[in-house]
């Protein structure tokens, strides 16, 4: 326990023995008799009970698809504990209110652990300046003036010397997701700051789901292809394709509505190399599949549906472009339609279930059975999740799934599904200044290619780094990068091929990290600027994915140490660099010290001019602040594209239809000049990835590693929390028969490696994973030994930084080998927090 935590625990909870003595005397008879009258004390008295503390409604704020209420119970300026929504903190609320249309927004294990994150020993409390080598972790404390002057001076210097591309924006959603304090790739505070400064290279691909963004955009013209979470309760069949809603909490109550669906007779199927907790909770039919072969299996299903004429031809004729010859556009007549490809009319290879079975390892009979179920059950939700898209050619999987969703007519219908990205209800998401300065950049590259760009400059082709096209003479010129800024971002730890990043970062002259926690990225920074957590600043929270509500997020406690908000830091820097009033138009010069009134002004304006004006909300800002949570009541669940299907509104694609044949892709003359860099077929196709079990590389590296999102962290956030570390182990999941061949048991230390790196972590041996596949969850905090071996078990030492053409990170395209090892495994930087999860995991046959 850190000193701070211990102090808290001591002062609040544990020094109770003295207080209890008087009340407990009555019970102090012999061990054989129990007290007859009710004792007044309970074991942990006299710690403050909830009702003796001040209650403040707030929410979690880490980078996941949900957002849940947290209720802070505080004494003075200290948060004593957190609870969650119990139905009371809304208009007409009462304890226990939890209806299907207004469910409670109950926080997950990560949200519930926030108190130990705020008060963790990794909390960054003061500005720090590096004194050791990058990555060594040696810093000295600095004053704000010293740190800001250093950053501002270096910025001017670098811009003068290297020009407008020299500073790379690697802001990400780690400090998200409020309407006001935004860390984000596109419209975040850092992008605004570097853009206005006139020196910014942007990073355009999204690590979690770029393949899916591409697919949804090409197919539907929108990433808002998601139904709201309550719509799941109306499905008759839910196919969870690479989706584990028991781990990644996608939306306020998605997992709970799926439970309701199950109770109403919905059947579940899981396509995944692992038998997940979601599969067991929803009693799903598990179809294990070789990683990276999803598009092939979907093609086999499409073939079987066409062959039996089970497709919804009326729907296709009316709403779809390029599904078959009858739906080809004028300009494409006679070209290859999706059906031509599937049936083999165009290339002579029929994509039969038998053809698919050879590739994906799923028996043809199972492919047929699932195809029939999906085609004939109405309504059915094929939830094509993100993970299988985080592959080489992952975008083809998402596009193929969209084709099946369209051919079965399950789009725009309650109980169906067009996801995809799955972003549901459209919120008023931004209280930032409305002006053209939010996203100015000199160049933009694929996010995971920065190290490649730095190491190979200037001998680079634009397609190698996915340069975003520009309408000016700088189009296609690779950026000269000499500095990185991180805001809400631990990307150094989270992007692919970390060893390549380690090589590249030493070519930089300035690395600045804004964070509330000292992260592995922070250890490679030159300047660490301490940021107030969302408990220490004023904002409004909303789910970015699914769920229709806003949660007020007041300043619960004062910023700890000398921490400031990102807004304060960038505003102050902007003033020092000469553009303060433009950067933060409502602020005064002393905003660095007095920000409360200005922040309130932004938020009130947002509520009144956007929420009240656009969303027909009658509750005033002050009333909202009083209740804490505003839940929208819908007359029916929101379903994506309902207007298109029921009212004939055109899709936002060039043709106004669902584009299985993509107009932009079919009409692109030269892919090298697009941000994609390389050819992408206009209809979805199975394309062999550069690493998979069917590849010749599998002779040397016979195991396919997948790296899903964990439940006990949000990416890398919370890796330092002992409470959470106690619920899991950073481990490598190995199929029992594979483990047996190598004499490996659960708990053995394993080293896993390929040409890119080596990691060490314990084994979890199970029948729940398919043979030939190993699983390591992303996000553990890198911890190198003297030979460059990662002791934490971070799989991104093994991933390849070569992205898929559409920009998908190939996080799940990794071949490896592994063996039992004597090398050191260290689950975290602190030695206290060892996991005990094995104690609570066993085989029931034992």
């Amino acid at each position, binding site marked *: *326990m850190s000193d701070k935590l211990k102090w808290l*625990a001591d002062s*609040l909870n*544990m020094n109770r023995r003295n207080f*209890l*003595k008087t009340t*407990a005397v009555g*019970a102090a008879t*012999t*061990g*054989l008799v*129990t*007290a007859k009258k*009710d*004792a007044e004390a*309970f*074991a*942990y008295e006299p710690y403050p*009970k909830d009702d003796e503390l001040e209650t403040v409604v707030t929410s979690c704020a880490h980078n996941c698809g949900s957002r849940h209420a947290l209720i802070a119970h505080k004494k003075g300026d200290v948060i004593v504990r957190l*609870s*969650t929504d*119990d139905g009371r903190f809304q208009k007409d609320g009462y*304890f226990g209110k*939890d209806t299907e249309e207004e469910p409670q927004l*109950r926080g*997950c*294990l990560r949200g*519930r*652990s926030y108190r130990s994150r705020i008060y963790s020993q990794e909390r960054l409390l003061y500005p720090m300046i590096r004194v050791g080598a990058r990555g060594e972790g040696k810093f000295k404390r600095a004053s704000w003036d010293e740190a800001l002057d250093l950053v501002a001076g270096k910025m001017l210097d670098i811009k003068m010397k290297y020009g407008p591309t020299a500073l790379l924006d690697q802001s990400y959603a780690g400090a998200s997701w409020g309407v006001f304090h935004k860390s984000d790739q596109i419209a975040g505070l850092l992008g605004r700051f570097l853009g206005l400064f006139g020196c910014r290279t942007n990073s355009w691909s999204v690590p979690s789901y770029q393949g899916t963004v591409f697919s949804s955009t090409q197919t539907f013209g929108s990433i808002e292809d998601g139904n709201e979470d309550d719509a799941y309760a109306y499905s008759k069949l839910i196919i969870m394709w690479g989706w584990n809603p*028991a781990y990644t909490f996608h939306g306020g*109550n998605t*997992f709970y509505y799926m*439970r309701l669906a199950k109770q109403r007779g919905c059947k579940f199927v899981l396509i995944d190399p692992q038998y997940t*907790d*979601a599969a*067991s*909770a929803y009693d799903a039919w*598990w179809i*294990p599949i070789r990683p990276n072969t999803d598009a092939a299996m979907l093609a086999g299903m499409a073939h079987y549906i066409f062959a039996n004429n089970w497709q919804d031809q009326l729907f296709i004729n009316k709403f779809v472009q390029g599904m078959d010859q009858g739906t080809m556009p004028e300009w494409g007549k006679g070209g290859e339609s999706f059906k031509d490809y599937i049936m083999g009319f165009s290339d002579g290879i029929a994509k039969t279930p038998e053809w698919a079975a050879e590739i994906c390892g799923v028996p043809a009979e199972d492919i047929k059975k699932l195809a029939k179920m999906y085609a004939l059950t109405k309504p059915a939700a094929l939830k094509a999740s993100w993970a299988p898209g985080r592959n080489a050619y992952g975008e083809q999987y998402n596009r193929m799934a969209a084709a099946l969703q369209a051919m079965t007519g399950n789009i725009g219908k309650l109980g169906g599904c067009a996801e995809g990205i799955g972003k549901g209800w459209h919120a008023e998401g931004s209280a930032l200044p409305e002006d053209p300065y939010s996203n100015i950049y000199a160049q933009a590259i694929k996010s995971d290619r920065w190290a490649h760009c730095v190491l190979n400059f200037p001998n680079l082709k634009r397609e190698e780094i996915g340069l975003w096209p520009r309408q000016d003479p700088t189009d296609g010129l690779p950026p000269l990068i000499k500095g990185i800024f991180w805001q809400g971002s631990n990307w150094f730890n989270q992007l692919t091929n970390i060893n390549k990043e380690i090589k590249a970062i030493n070519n930089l002259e300035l690395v600045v990290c804004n964070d509330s926690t000292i992260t592995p990225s922070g250890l490679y920074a030159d300047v660490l600027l301490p940021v107030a957590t969302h408990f220490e600043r004023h904002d409004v929270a909303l789910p970015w994915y699914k769920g229709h509500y806003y949660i007020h997020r007041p300043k619960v406690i004062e910023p700890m140490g000398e921490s400031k908000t990102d807004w304060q830091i960038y505003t102050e820097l902007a003033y020092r660099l000469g553009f303060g009033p433009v950067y933060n138009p409502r602020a005064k010069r002393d905003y660095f010290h007095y920000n409360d009134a200005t922040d309130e002004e932004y938020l009130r304006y947002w509520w009144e001019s956007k929420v009240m004006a656009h969303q027909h909300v009658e509750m005033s800002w002050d009333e909202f602040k009083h209740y804490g949570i505003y839940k929208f009541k819908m007359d029916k669940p929101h379903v994506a594209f309902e207007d298109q299907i029921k009212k004939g509104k055109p899709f936002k694609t060039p043709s106004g239809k669902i584009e299985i044949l993509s107009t932009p892709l079919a009409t692109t003359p030269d892919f090298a000049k697009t941000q994609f860099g390389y050819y992408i077929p206009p209809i979805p196709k199975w394309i062999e990835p550069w690493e998979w079990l069917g590849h010749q590389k599998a002779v040397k590296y016979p195991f396919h590693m997948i790296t899903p999102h964990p*439940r006990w962290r949000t990416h890398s956030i919370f890796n330092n929390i*002992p*409470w*959470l*570390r*106690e*619920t899991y182990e950073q481990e490598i999941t190995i199929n*029992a*028969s594979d483990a047996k061949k190598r004499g490996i048991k659960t708990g053995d230390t394993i080293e896993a490696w390929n040409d890119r790196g080596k990691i060490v972590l314990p084994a979890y041996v*199970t*029948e*729940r994973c*398919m*043979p030939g596949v190993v699983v390591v969850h992303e996000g553990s905090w890198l911890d190198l030994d003297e030979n460059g071996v990662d002791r934490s078990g971070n799989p991104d030492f093994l991933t390849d930084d070569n992205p898929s053409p559409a920009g998908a990170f190939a996080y799940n395209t990794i071949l490896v080998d592994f063996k039992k090892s004597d090398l050191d495994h260290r689950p975290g930087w602190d030695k206290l927090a060892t996991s*005990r*999860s094995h104690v*609570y*995991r*066993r085989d*029931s046959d*034992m």
Partner: protein
Amino acid sequence: MTEAKKLDKEQVKQAVKRRKQVTYAPVQPEEQLGFVHNNVDCIGCRACEIACKDKNGLAAGPRFRRVQYIEGGTYPEVYAYKVNMSCNHCAEPACLPTCPTGAIWKRADNGVVDIDSTLCIGCRRCEAACPFGAPQFDPSDGLVKKCNMCIDELEAGRKPYCVMACMMRVLDIGPIDEIRSGEYDTKAIGPGEETTRRVKGLANPDLTNPSIAFIPHSKGKVD
């Protein structure tokens, strides 16, 4: 283990009964509260565990609530389920008579079993006696602690932190008799589901008569 199995079970039952009779007469609460947990629908997220840690100010180590992950079968015919327990506030708690200082008592109103920490000497006998692993030794102060069903929350008219944390609504408390008879209105029990006292792999409930009911997984059913 093989030796023990040869014993006459009836004889053992009689012996246990005899021991109980000569040891103490358990408190008969006005209304015994207990837990209900749906083993199948639980996603095993352990939000309840973290809520409990926060509520009780515990560091890593002592773990009042424990979600056990149980799995079996052979690839690809596998299954998994969760069994979630803290203290079962047994009708005949095994911990209570082992306590040499009388720190453990059972409440007469709701049957909650509690440890008075001013009396606990940290001898850990209760930890050894409990067949469910409820008492937890806290090395930070040398005391044994356990779930008290958030008695302060109960007294305030609310439910314990773990129950109110459950994202899937599969964990609840209520009068255990009503939970068992199916009269109790709770989301933890789905339509057509029936509770059981015992699931595979757990200690025999006849030992202490724990106040907990489960919706069992088909592979977790006993008999």
